[in-house]
């Protein structure tokens, strides 16, 4: 059993990284950054964490440095958000293409312009196709636990892919929550020292990231995608062993009162807490409403999502990001693709809410369910609806 404490969620992630005995951290310390790397810098400066902390001149350099440290076999971590993640964009593909098991925390925040440092999921949704394993936490405990799991998943020789733990900016990253803090001994027992497969070493030279001529590029891309798809089994294994060791269970998809629900809300991240209260109230009022929270975003849990949502009349998807000129929200469009092969598929209504730090209230979920009922009655009138927008 861990020790029960109260801790800011960003600092809980720093503690998890420290307990993972990370070897290298590279980060750029300016807004939009979080306390995660600030705390890690303090730990290294105080001698509490035996790691190399590399200060760089930009987020692009931060991810470049992480590629370098991971390529020489160091357990590597960084954190970013918003514009910082956007600036990393180019290097994010290098990390996954080189199969470097870097772990990164993202405190999801809006993208400029207009300038916004507040929370939504625009930053990471723009990085959907970078080839990283990606997951979303709802609570501080989950953020702490999944950060530990990320190292074990990323470094598994069957995976070797960089991995992202997403937390909602501010609503999770900056709040203090109660959580079970695990001991160094228990983490050491569960998370072994990283054993890299291939490293840059002058004694045994290799070329990483060579030119991929047209006659091999397709095969290497297929290899990379298969690694991501097949990482699914490793994710399940790691979460299973985490439960056995620490007693807390994680699954790719969380369902809440969804089994007999006619309308199911599907979303990602911390607004699930508010949605759960709304579901309880609507249930008390006799409405058959449920909730499905997608925890694992890449690899996408197709079968679990079909199982959890396939029996509903309608799914109300709540996205905290917008696909401009497209089908509404990225979570909704993924879900539509996922459910399309089913014969009797639910109607998928797309809602955009909580952009740029705007609260998503219990009342908003009432509106979302009411609008979904309208779609059930009359069919689609819009590709998506924006909740709470002044018109």
């Amino acid at each position, binding site marked *: 059993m861990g020790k029960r404490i109260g801790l800011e969620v960003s600092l809980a992630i720093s503690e998890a990284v420290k307990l993972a005995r990370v070897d290298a951290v590279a980060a750029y310390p300016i807004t939009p950054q979080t306390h995660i790397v600030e705390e890690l810098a303090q730990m290294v400066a105080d001698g509490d964490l035996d790691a190399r902390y590399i200060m760089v001149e930009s987020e692009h350099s931060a991810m470049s440095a992480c590629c370098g440290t991971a390529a020489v076999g160091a357990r590597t971590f960084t954190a970013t958000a918003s514009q910082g993640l956007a600036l990393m964009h180019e290097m994010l593909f290098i990390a996954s293409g080189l*199969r470097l098991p870097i772990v990164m925390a993202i405190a999801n925040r809006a993208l400029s312009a207009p300038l916004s440092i507040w929370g939504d999921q625009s930053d990471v949704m723009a990085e959907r196709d970078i080839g990283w394993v990606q997951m979303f936490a709802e609570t501080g405990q989950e953020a702490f636990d999944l950060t530990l799991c990320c190292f074990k998943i990323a470094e598994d020789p069957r995976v070797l892919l960089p991995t992202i733990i997403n937390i909602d900016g501010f609503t999770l990253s900056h709040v203090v929550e109660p959580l079970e803090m695990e001991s160094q001994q228990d983490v050491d027992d569960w998370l072994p020292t990283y054993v890299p497969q291939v490293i840059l070493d002058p004694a045994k030279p*290799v070329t*990483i990231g*060579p030119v991929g001529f047209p006659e091999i590029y397709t*095969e290497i891309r297929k*290899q990379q995608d298969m690694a991501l798809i097949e990482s699914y089994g490793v994710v399940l294994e790691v979460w299973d062993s985490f439960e056995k060791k620490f007693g807390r269970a994680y699954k790719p998809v969380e369902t809440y009162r969804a089994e007999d629900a006619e309308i199911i809300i599907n979303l990602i991240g911390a607004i699930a807490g508010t949605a759960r209260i709304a579901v309880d109230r609507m249930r008390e009022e006799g409405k058959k409403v449920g909730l499905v929270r997608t925890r694992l975003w890449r690899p996408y849990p197709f079968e679990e999502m079909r199982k959890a949502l396939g029996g509903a009349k309608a799914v109300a998807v709540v996205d905290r990001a917008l696909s401009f000129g497209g089908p509404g929200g990225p979570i909704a469009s993924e879900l539509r693709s996922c459910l399309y092969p089913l014969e009797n598929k639910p109607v998928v209504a797309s809602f955009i809410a909580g952009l740029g730090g705007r609260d998503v209230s219990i009342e908003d979920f009432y509106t979302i369910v009411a609008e979904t009922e309208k779609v059930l009655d009359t069919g689609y009138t819009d590709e998506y609806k924006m909740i709470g927008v002044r018109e």
Partner: protein
Amino acid sequence: MADKRTWREYPVAATIHEPGSATGQNTGDWRSQRPVRHDEKCDKCGICWIFCPDAALFMNEEGFYEVDLYHCKGCGICARECGKEAIIMVEEGE
């Protein structure tokens, strides 16, 4: 396509485990021009050898720098840098 391997048969991330494997690549077939040396002008200074970005020049027994046409891409840097105008670029096919 010469390479018939399936995606399963490549090393992870296409990493090359054999040092110096590029020597086996016939990069010379990209060339549209080739360097031709005129021994009467050449003073064997080695500037061409220093500047060649592809290590496609090597010294022969007489001390002249020969072109390795299997790797020379015909960039013309050797001809440009030669202080004696002892290297002339000639169109391939001439």
